[in-house]
């Protein structure tokens, strides 16, 4: 008890004595801010739960997610030991849901690593450099924005080949323009501020200014946008799967499960509804978490 109290005092000290202590202290304070927001913590719990489900899917699953049993098809939830029922080919929906969590989290991670990063780089470079670089990059962005998103993604998938990775990559490549626009708008307001002039007068180059001084200020608005887009991204991945260009049929991807259940939605509601609830849960969790993260990333709104 006394050591944990000592640790707490060390972390919350008004006058940190070393850079390491100051860094740990700011993380700890960020965590306290995050923890004080109940909705955010709810989102974090849901997300942690889904991630644990994905990791321990082989242990938790009651059936083989790919095993078909036409005699057991379209069973209602709870019947014959199928917790969430079975789909049109008699596969256990509960087990498929667990394995599907792996795919959904994989999609999310892949998109989060590609689209906002591309948008951030393009937007900040464009906004900071100005002149012909700005014109060139923004017209390219316009071209990407002008295409219907799904059709552009289709074209990419057709060129790269079908499969979940390529589908996500295609979605990321079509999703970056809005991020670039946001990052550019932020950069334009930041680039003429006195603190950028000041670091320029210290002899900092453009690369350092963009990555170390402009990026940290753009990231919070991008995080919000990413979390809002997350649900749409999962659904677009599902849409591509439905068209036969994303997740391929036996794979238990949630969106593909919904499109399979579409045919039976009036008589066998659970086939589409249960993966729908899962998508809803992960989207909601990301939105709540994103909202709380913004508060942590923005030390200006410090109430202490």
């Amino acid at each position, binding site marked *: 008890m006394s050591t944990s109290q000592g640790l707490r005092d060390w972390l919350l000290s008004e006058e*940190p004595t070393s850079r390491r202590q100051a860094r740990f202290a700011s993380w700890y304070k960020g965590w306290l801010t995050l923890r004080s927001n109940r909705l955010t913590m709810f989102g974090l719990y849901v997300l942690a739960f889904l991630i644990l489900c994905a990791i321990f899917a082989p242990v938790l699953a009651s059936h083989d997610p790919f095993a078909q049993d036409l005699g057991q098809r379209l069973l209602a939830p709870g019947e014959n030991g199928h917790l969430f029922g079975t789909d049109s080919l008699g596969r256990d929906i509960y087990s498929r849901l667990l394995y599907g969590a792996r795919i959904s989290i994989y999609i999310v991670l892949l998109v989060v690593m590609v689209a906002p990063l591309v948008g951030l780089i393009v937007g900040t470079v464009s906004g900071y450099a100005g002149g012909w670089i700005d014109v060139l990059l923004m017209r390219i962005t316009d071209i990407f924005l002008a295409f219907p998103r799904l059709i552009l993604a289709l074209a990419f998938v057709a060129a790269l080949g079908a499969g979940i990775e390529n589908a996500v990559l295609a979605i990321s490549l079509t999703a970056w323009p809005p991020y670039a626009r946001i990052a550019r708008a932020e950069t334009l307001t930041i680039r003429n501020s*006195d*603190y950028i002039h000041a670091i320029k007068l210290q002899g900092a180059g453009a690369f350092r200014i963009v990555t170390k001084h402009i990026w940290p*200020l753009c990231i919070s608005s991008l995080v919000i946008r990413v979390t809002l887009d997350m649900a749409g991204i999962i659904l677009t991945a599902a849409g591509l799967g439905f068209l036969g260009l994303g997740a391929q049929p036996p794979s238990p991807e949630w969106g593909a499960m919904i499109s399979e259940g579409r045919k039976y939605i009036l008589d066998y509601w659970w086939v589409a509804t249960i993966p729908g609830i899962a998508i809803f849960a992960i989207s909601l969790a990301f939105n709540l978490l994103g909202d709380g993260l913004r508060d942590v990333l923005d030390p*200006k709104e*410090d109430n202490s």
Partner: protein
Amino acid sequence: MSAVTVNDLNVWFGVGADRSYAVQNVTFDVDDGESFGLVGESGSGKSTILRAIAGLVPTWSGEMTVAGETLGPKRSKSFYSKVQMVFQDPYASLHPRQTVDRVLSEAMGLHGVENIDTRIGQLLDDVGLGPGFRFRYPHQLSGGQRQRVAIARALACDPSILLLDEPTSALDVSVQAEILNLLVDLRREHKLTYIMVSHDLGVVGHLCERIGVMKDGRFEEVLSVEAMRRSEAQSPYTKHLLESSINSIR
């Protein structure tokens, strides 16, 4: 030897028919260790001169020599280690996501200073901030403390010339006096040359030996602070400025 020589400086904004001159035919020089004030109304071009010297305004013509180095369109690395600037608004001149430590250590890192850890302690001490301020964010500091941090950042590379752009006008009166006294002390300790912009004749009189009076982008006249105190101005505009400043004190 002159620390700063400015000869026939013109600065303009806009292109083609929209081009308007903010500074016209300005000539002055500042001796080593001298403190030179630029006064005038808002929009008279005083800050623009500082920005042109610092290299923040690319559109200028004329001749500028700073610490023996004739300035071209780009500033060299050695220029930045000799000349630093303190900005008007301490609320805008510090990066909102960086601690004092980060600001100062980055400035020193860029200038290749060694023993950054101990130097930061000294620097904070120099500007009258204790070690407790080292890991604070700007939003945890008052206006006067922020301006002290901005001054510390300007001093991080041990420059010989400081450009002060109304360093006290965004602060309230008691804090203004503190910052002015700090600037006086620092100048004595570090043998600095100041070029200071202000619209407050009292502030300039406290810190400077000579002042240049500006109106509409031009120099009305350059006079010593003693002459200013004796109200021995030549040009009618300066006389008017002095009178109105005296009246406002009454």
